[in-house]
């Protein structure tokens, strides 16, 4: 990465709301511009990340819709869709284009709470291959259930391990006022009693569906503010989406490849990472992410989880925000929201959930079941 700094961040609360797509986008964008201390006329381009505007709301062409917030500002803008990785891919897209557009606003936004269960489950499953996956009813939870089942067979992972991931992320969300479940204490008893969604995954193994938006202002040059955070690694890798087209179920080769590239750009190894925000759309995904990012082998990841080492005060804090699991998953906003969260941590502005000694952080955003993966390395000023 030749030069990419996060100047400003803005994020709405994730969770059900009556606010419109544009209202949510506005809230995140204005917060990010205020945080960067610039006006809209200082932007060179806008990237909008969104997944289901079409099927959920009959709303496509969101770059132009968002442009409606800034009449007379005729700068380039485009929409990026890469399923649940839309946000991370949009940030990568912007980072790669900072040479042409020195100051880019990335905004991710999603509305999901209006759509009924049967329709929403189908719409989210649109991330899967229509002929190979959708026709056999391989919904999003079902895909990750196959991953979980294989992980249990290969690595001896238990339901108890999944429970611990859920318990930690719900506890973290209690300290994050913008988290979907910030208001709700969840106990192990409740987690264990959750009904099955797609075996072995139960209700508390799954992230909620959230409305929300998140925005970042990126710049090719660092500002005078010590609050600017450098993006030192930015990579995207893809894979065939259907699990029928893969050789392994217990890791996502695209995530591992994106991590390898991002670490190489940043000149770091996994051992240099102080904290991570990973794409835990399901509890099993957090465990898979830890090994795909090279932070631990599957066996080590299980040991760390059992020892509580992934809590904010542990050796490797994972999803101090509550993750997708309890922080919420406003799909197009998720990958952008991860960057917002890590910037807060690296600035030392994460209040009660602040991770100590947070200098290098990694964001890991996955679309579909490992089909699109974006990995970012962020570094604070020491």
């Amino acid at each position, binding site marked *: 990465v030749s030069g990419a700094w996060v100047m400003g961040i803005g994020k709405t609360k994730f969770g059900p709301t009556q606010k419109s797509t544009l209202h949510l986008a506005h809230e995140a964008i204005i917060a990010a511009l205020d945080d960067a201390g610039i006006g809209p006329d200082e932007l060179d381009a806008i990237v909008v990340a969104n997944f289901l505007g079409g099927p959920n709301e009959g709303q496509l062409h969101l770059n132009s819709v968002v442009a409606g917030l800034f009449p007379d500002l005729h700068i380039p803008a485009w929409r990026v869709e890469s399923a649940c990785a839309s946000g991370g891919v949009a940030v990568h897209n912007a980072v790669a284009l900072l040479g042409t557009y020195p100051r880019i606003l990335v905004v991710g936004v999603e509305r999901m709470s209006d759509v009924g269960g049967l329709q929403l489950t189908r719409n989210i499953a649109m991330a899967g291959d229509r*002929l190979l996956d959708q026709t056999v009813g391989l919904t999003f939870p079902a895909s990750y259930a196959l991953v979980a089942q294989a992980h249990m067979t290969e690595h001896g992972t238990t339901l108890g391990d999944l429970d611990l991931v859920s318990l930690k992320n719900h506890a973290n969300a209690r300290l994050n006022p913008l988290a979907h479940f910030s208001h709700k204490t969840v106990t192990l008893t409740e987690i264990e009693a959750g009904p099955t969604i797609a075996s072995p995954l139960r209700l508390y193994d799954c992230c909620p569906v959230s409305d929300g938006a998140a925005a970042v202002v990126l710049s090719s040059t660092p500002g005078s503010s010590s609050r600017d955070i450098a993006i030192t690694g930015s990579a995207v890798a893809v894979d065939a989406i259907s699990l029928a087209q893969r050789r392994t179920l217990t890791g996502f080769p695209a995530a591992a490849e994106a991590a390898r590239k991002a670490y190489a750009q940043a000149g770091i190894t996994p051992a240099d990472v102080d904290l991570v925000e990973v794409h835990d759309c399901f509890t099993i995904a957090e465990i898979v992410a830890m090994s795909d990012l090279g932070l631990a082998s599957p066996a080590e990841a299980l040991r760390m989880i059992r020892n509580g080492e992934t809590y904010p005060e542990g050796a490797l804090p994972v999803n101090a925000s509550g993750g997708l699991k309890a922080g919420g998953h406003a799909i197009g906003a998720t990958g952008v929201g991860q960057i917002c969260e890590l910037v807060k941590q690296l600035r030392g502005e994460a209040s009660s959930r602040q991770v100590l000694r947070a200098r290098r952080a990694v964001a890991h955003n996955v679309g579909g079941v490992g089909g699109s993966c974006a990995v970012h390395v962020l570094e604070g000023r020491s």
Partner: protein
Amino acid sequence: MTMDRGLTYSCGVCERTFAYDIPSCPWCGEALTRNVSGPSTVISVTRVETPSIGHEEVPYWCALAADTEGRRALHKLETEALVGQVLDTTADEGSGGRAGIIGTGVMGRGLAELLLTLGWSVVIVSRDATRAARIASAVLARLERVMDEVEIAAAGARLVTTDDLSVLQSCDVVVEAVAEDLSIKKAVLAQAEPHVRPDALLVTNTSGLELDAMAAVLEHPERFGALHFFNPVVRMRLVEISGSNQTSPDTIDALEHLAIRLGKTPIRVKARPAFVVNRILMPLIGEAIRSLEEGAADAEHIDEAVRLGLNHPMGPLALADLIGLDVVLEITENMRQQTGDEAYAPRPTLIRMVAENQLGKKTGRGFFDYS
């Protein structure tokens, strides 16, 4: 577009395998070899408890299985499967069989369109060869919405029209789709049967006439049953499946398998007058007409009330117009005669409109004006 599960395509040069029937290897440019997977072992499986559009009935199981060559495919199962279990996932060689259709009405045409789209060969039999040929070009014209010229030409080569029943000997399944009149159906089935191979299925597309009476005119009634498709056949997912008192259990299973191969959701129903759907629909239409007769509201508002209040996509009067009021009258009369229940008697307004040739959409005028 559909997918044959258990088929993969591999490149002989780079040995990569693809899930799709693509024209050539994107790496080497070589033509791909088609692999048919044999029995496969389950690698991972999940019991899905949350329904979604297209998969409303839960639980079902999704299994990822690999054959002995390591080729993987996902399968939807209605019963539990365990990791390590061997599934018989052998693909149907070539998706299409050969079907005979007797009748050139809206159902016969729709069925021909569906079968050709799925790669089947189709024989359309009609007493009037000229009419059959005209219907054939109408069916091919419908395919222009979903096929290119080359594919339509190939579909055309798979479509035969004739007035000669003996051509049915080449068919794996023969579907009678003539007028909804028991005596006509009995006569057509009796004439066709000598030309239908003993191993082929003989099917009626009745919406609920007496299957026992039809079976009685046949030499081999055990392989005869009903597949009640809905209009438009290409779009409507339901097929009602039923048999006479002489239909074998194997035939019912084969009919169900056939419906699934055609991408439909089969529901087995007892052979009673009008099966399930029409038995419920006809009284609904009757009560809508009665509401009109009693001045409850005008046609437009009766339909709007039902659409909004019962969450139906279409009001009963507009639906009656679409089906054809003559057909509605026919089915209603059949229901009354078969059940002996006067509650099913057709409404006077329906009888009058049919007598005045106001048959709905097809004549341009029914409960609504289509001119």
